[in-house]
């Protein structure tokens, strides 16, 4: 086994997340799939950091985590707002920017 296995695992996780975004309809589950893709990208960053022998990849993964946290906070607030007006977390039903 070489470190490339980690990259293959990350590719598989990323694909599962991408397929999940395409086939699921619940906005919150879609968000979780996006989180899974971000995590897969983080795994590649950490692996590449190890391959290169520098810590820059880990720093980048750290920043990805920070951005993901901010994104989740705002995204979930938007989902809450949409749910409050439309009584539904289904992404197919939210087809207007206002009302």
């Amino acid at each position, binding site marked *: *086994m*070489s*470190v*490339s*296995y*980690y*990259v*293959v695992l990350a*590719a*598989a*996780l*990323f*694909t*599962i*997340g*991408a*397929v*999940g975004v*395409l*086939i699921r*309809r*619940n906005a*919150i*589950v879609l968000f*979780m*799939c996006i*989180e*899974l893709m971000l*995590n897969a990208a*983080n*795994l590649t960053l*950490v*692996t590449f*950091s*190890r*391959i*290169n*022998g520098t*810590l820059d990849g*880990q*720093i980048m*993964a*750290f*920043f990805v*985590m920070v*951005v*993901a*946290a*901010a994104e*989740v906070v*705002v995204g979930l607030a*938007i*989902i*809450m*707002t949409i*749910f*409050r007006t439309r009584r*539904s*977390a289904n992404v*197919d039903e939210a087809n207007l920017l206002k009302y």
Partner: protein
Amino acid sequence: MSLALETLAQSTVPTGEVVTFWILAPIALACALGMVLARNAVHSALFLVVTMLCLGVFYMVQAGPFLGFVQIIVYTGAIMMLFLFVLMLVGRDSAEAVIEVLRGQRIAAVVLGGGLAALLGTGAVRALRATTATGLEAANADGNVQAIAQLLFTRYVFAFEVTSALLITAAVGAMVLAHVTRPKAERVGQTARMLARFAPGGSPAPKPGPGVFATSNSIATPALLPDGTPAERSISAVVPTRDLTPEEAAPKGTQGNQEGQQ
């Protein structure tokens, strides 16, 4: 298993790491699949937690203990709890639509996903097959946290500062989005509330609590008025009213004993 043993023989990473990988990677993949396929959104969230924990262990194994713990604390601790909070607020059983708006979208998504996985996987394997990891022993000589702090506060200090602006913007944005502005006419002041309480039809005293009797202390049991009729106002409107079954309405043994003693 033979594949695992074969790879163990020509492995460029320590044996313990290989074992960890072959145990945790299938769990991570299975839970990621479970997250996508689970009907219940709460189950999806819990599956994702397991996947993230596995990834946290991978970070620690790959000489990134700081990131591993940040992953566990921030992702599984904070972000996934936020997800669960919102799931409970939105209603965890908000039904998933079965109707396909675009015909054949799901099958197409799965097929294209398989293609994407093959492309990414083969590309990564071809590019990295002969690569040996330099390893982070030199970079982590003074400790992983110290090394990351050194980089973070020198080369990446500007990005770090920008991050603080991002976090403040996100917090303000969440507050603005979650805030509900009520028109001033709908707001009821203390004076208006007091007047309504003492006006005819209002009740100056608190509402009566539900009944607590020897036979029942359920909040669904109404209190009795002086004339023996149940006080409907003592039951919360949220509690569904239910009729007692004959077994429940039948006299309990305690009542029989009391009558016998009398």
